[in-house]
Each structure stands twice: as C-alpha cells, then as structure tokens.
C-alpha cells in the first residue's frame, strides 16, 4: 500500500475535459502533484509557457492511431531480468557523504509521525 500524500492530492483528477490551455488553478494543482514550490514571480510565466506546450502537443489528437500498439521500447525487446541475488557491497557511508543530513547511518527528515 502506498501512503496517502500529506495533501491528499496524489492521483487527483484535474478536470475531465481536455482544455485548450491551462489556468492558474490547474497549474497550481500540477505543481502540488510534482512536489514543486514555485516562487510568485515564476508562477505567471509557468502558466503561460505550460499552456503553450500543452497547446502544441495537442496536435497529436489529430493523428489516427486506431489499432496502433503503443511503443514500449525503442528496440522492441523485452526487459532483461537477473537473478534476485545481492551483487553489490554495502557502501552506506560512502553513499551518505552526499546526504544533506544523516545520523548514525540514517537519513534525517522532518518529523512525520506525531
């Protein structure tokens, strides 16, 4: 089971109909889903540019794709699998040198459970 996002927004439906472009409310919603805080001055520009991008990719709707199988891999091959065996050595300390905050080998985050 995946934990519910703190804002309850995970997999929220945006709006049913496909809009020609995006409004502020939708962009705010997308930013929450993407876990991105936009500065106020960034926000207006993002609404404008994101709308242009969505309008641009909208031309795909004109293509006739009935009976076309969605492409899953550029070479049309299956994903390779390997035996479920430990092959890497434990390099925790080395890996954690890049972590912003650790203690006793654990990553530190703000308190999650009261």
């Amino acid at each position, binding site marked *: 089971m995946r934990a519910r996002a703190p804002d309850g927004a995970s997999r929220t439906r945006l709006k049913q109909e496909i809009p020609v472009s995006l409004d502020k409310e939708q962009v705010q919603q997308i930013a929450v889903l993407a876990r*991105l805080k936009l500065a106020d001055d960034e926000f207006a520009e993002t609404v404008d540019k994101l709308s242009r991008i969505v309008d641009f990719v909208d031309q795909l709707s004109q293509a006739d794709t009935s009976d076309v199988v969605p492409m899953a891999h550029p070479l049309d091959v299956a994903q390779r699998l390997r035996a479920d065996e430990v092959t890497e050595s434990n390099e925790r300390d080395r890996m954690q040198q890049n972590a912003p905050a650790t203690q006793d080998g654990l990553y530190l985050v703000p308190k999650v459970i009261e």
Partner: protein
Amino acid sequence: MSQDLHTLTLTQIKAGLEKGEFSAVELTEALLARVEKHDDALNAFITVTAEQALAAAKSADAARAAGKGGVLNGLPLVHKDIFCTRDILTTCGSRMLEDFVSPYDATIVERLAAAGAVVLGKSNMDEFAMGSSNETSFFGPVRNPWNAECSPGGSSGGSAAAVAARLAPAATGTDTGGSIRQPAALTGTVGLKPTYGRVSRYGMIAFASSLDQAGVITRSSADAALLLGVMAGFDERDSTSIDHPVPDYTAALSQSLDGLRVGIVKQHFDEGLDEQTGAAVREALAVLEANGATLTEVDMPNIDLSVPTYYVVAPAECSSNLSRFDGVRFGHRADDPEDLFDLYCRSRGEGFGAEVKRRIMTGTYVLSAGYYDAYYLKAQQVRHLIADDFKKAFETVDVIAGPTAPTPAFKLGDKTDDPITMYLNDIYTIGANLAGLPGISTPCGLVDGLPVGLHLVGPHWGEETLLRCAHNYEQLTDWHFACPGDFS
C-alpha cells in the same frame, strides 16, 4: 612543437604518441594551458581536473614506456557533466547537484579510463540535459567559439564548444532529442549518437530513459569511430543495454560510397529550413551522389509529429526520473522545512531551474489521471507510427540524409521567450531518438561564418554505415577542418 598540439585530431594524437613525437604529459599541459587561457570567455567547463589529468598522463607515458597501455593511451578528452565521475564533482548543470561528488564512475568513464584516456574536465550543459542552447545551465550559458554572441547549441554545448575551440580533441555527450548532433552542427564538429542500447547508460544521469543515449563529439568521424569502439558493448549494470557484437568501426571507414543508398525526406526541406542551410546540405548530398551514392526520396508520413510526440514522452519520463531528487538522500535541501511535504517542494523548487520545472510539470500533467490516455498513450502510439516510417524507409535505403538543425547558431537569448521555438530546433534529430536509431552530424558548410551540419540517420546498429558515409564525405570536403578564427 607544443604550441601546435591542440590542432591535432584524436587520430593524429594517437599516431604522434605512438611515434614518440611528444608525450602525454606535454600534450595534457598544452591543452590545460589552453583551457586556462580561453575558457573564461567560453564557459565550456564546469570543472577542470588538471591534477588528475596530469597524473593520468604520467601513467599513460609510463605505460607506453613499458610497452603497455590501451588503445586510447594518453588521449585527452572531456566528459559531459552528466556522467558520474568518482570523487569528482558531477553537477548535471544544476543547482540541485551543485555539490554532488559522485561515489562511482559511469561505465563509459570507466571504459575510457581503462583504455588510457586522460580526462581534462567536465563540460557545461543545459540543466539535466533539458535544452537546445546551453542557456538553462545553472553555471551560465556556453558561448559559441564561432561567435561569442551565439549559442553553441545544447544540451552538450560545453562538449561541442570545447572541441570546436580546440581545448580538447574529443568529448563525450548525451543525446535525448538531438543534444549531441545539434551542438555538433552549430559548432562545426562531428557528433555521433549511437543506437539505443549500444552504449551503457549506467552512471549517466537519467533524463528520459527510453530516449537517452551516450555518444561523442569529435573533429572527425575517424575519431568518433575510435572512441565508439571503446564505449560500445554490453553492460550488465544497464538494464536496457543490448548484448550485440561490437564491430571494428575504424575498419568500416575504408569502404567507399559505391552503392550506398541515401534517402531524402521531403519534409526535412520544408519552409522551416533556413535557405542557405538548405543549400549547403543539398550541395553535400550532391557530393555523395557524385561519388557513388544514389539519392532517393523516402516517404515518412508521420515525421511531422515527432516534436509534439517527443514533448509528451520526454517530459513524462523526466518527471518520473527526477522524482528521485527529494532533498533527502543527495542533492539540494531547503533550509528549515516545516514538514516532509515542504521539504520536498522547496528543495525541488529551489534546486531546479525554470526549464526543468516546466518539463517536470508537463510530464506530471500528461501522466495524471484523466489525461494519460489522451497524451501519454497517444504519444506512444504516434511514436510507433514514426518508428514504422523509419523501418519502412530502411527497406529501400541505407541512410537518411538531411540537415541537422534548421538554422546555424542563433543568438543567446533569442529563443528563450517561447519554449516551442526552442523545441523546434531539434525537429530533424528527434525522430532518431523516438525510434532508437543511430545518427551522426558532420560539418557541411558555413553560412555567414557559422557552421551547419549534414545529418545522417541509419537503421538500428547501422553505426558502421553512418561512419563510412560521413568519413567519405569528410575526405571529399574540408568543412571539418574549418576552425573558428580566435582559436586556430
């Protein structure tokens, strides 16, 4: 002697080192001095690894003296800063990874080093490889050696500028929609993007995993062949690496153009193409034809949908890949987070630049409930149609040729207002990524003093044909010798 070493291609350097005309240390010192002298103006490097480079050069000289050393022994190059390099800063052009020191080497870094290559440093790039002008880099734009007011293209713009300015004879790059080939065209260098799965992506920071491929920027196709031979091949650590034999790419160069069937796509010469760029490319096609190749028009009815398809698929994959940057395990972390949600949102909001955020949001949107079918699924269907167009074309031709980019280098700042104008720069290159095909760009002219490129795309595993065609063209013309005036 030493003041001329920077003019040598990789192949010439290899011969010079083998004959003992100069040492790897002398060469490395000469190039580092050039980087020191010129890079303030170009901004092609994010990190210069002078100390490590000199140590590696010394080892290469010692190995040679002992009768040992790999095929690239003592040959200098630059790595795009998207490749993880052990104990060396690896930023991906982002504030997010401003202080990231990689704990391991990418497979290609490892393979090139094992063959004796000397790494001069890490090159500047568009942030997370998202851009076509190098202007999205957190470390500032790279300037085009041909005209400092112009962009060198992107995202491998630092790699291309370094090679064009003769600061390094070769550089690695990555290509998700044209990021090796377009900057190569705009700087008068050779850029090779191999078949998807040909070169390991292990340790290459992911942007769009079904499109990303590592390759090289060099001054000749012979140099590209030399490096590809070392980089290519199966890697267990990359789940999309393909176990396909690695041929002798250098041997492929000696074949003539006789009987080579070259396909032309009509839409690649439509009104979006700058007139003089088109004229240069047509002239290049005429050279191929006059020397044994045949030209045929091929029909690609769905190719016009490449760019919109790409701008659904690539952002979708980017939004998934970049979710790993959460301010917890590595990368930028915001100060004094209120809670975990605030930590995620502010770390990402501060760590990523505007274009990366736009792509993540575009991807989030096209993958969100209610829109998935209309955008992502639809794009993957159109992608199949485009791949089928190529497949059909390669039943009758060996390569498809055309322009690499619609115009020569554009001015910095010219295309930053409208994302679509910028995206259309990759209109001729994106198709190869969508279909997983190899592509190469080689210099084919100068328009108002700025280079333009001839673009060749081949079928899966068709690198030998591309290299053969480009190499023959380079023997028949001298565009790849052209050097920007300030850097001769």
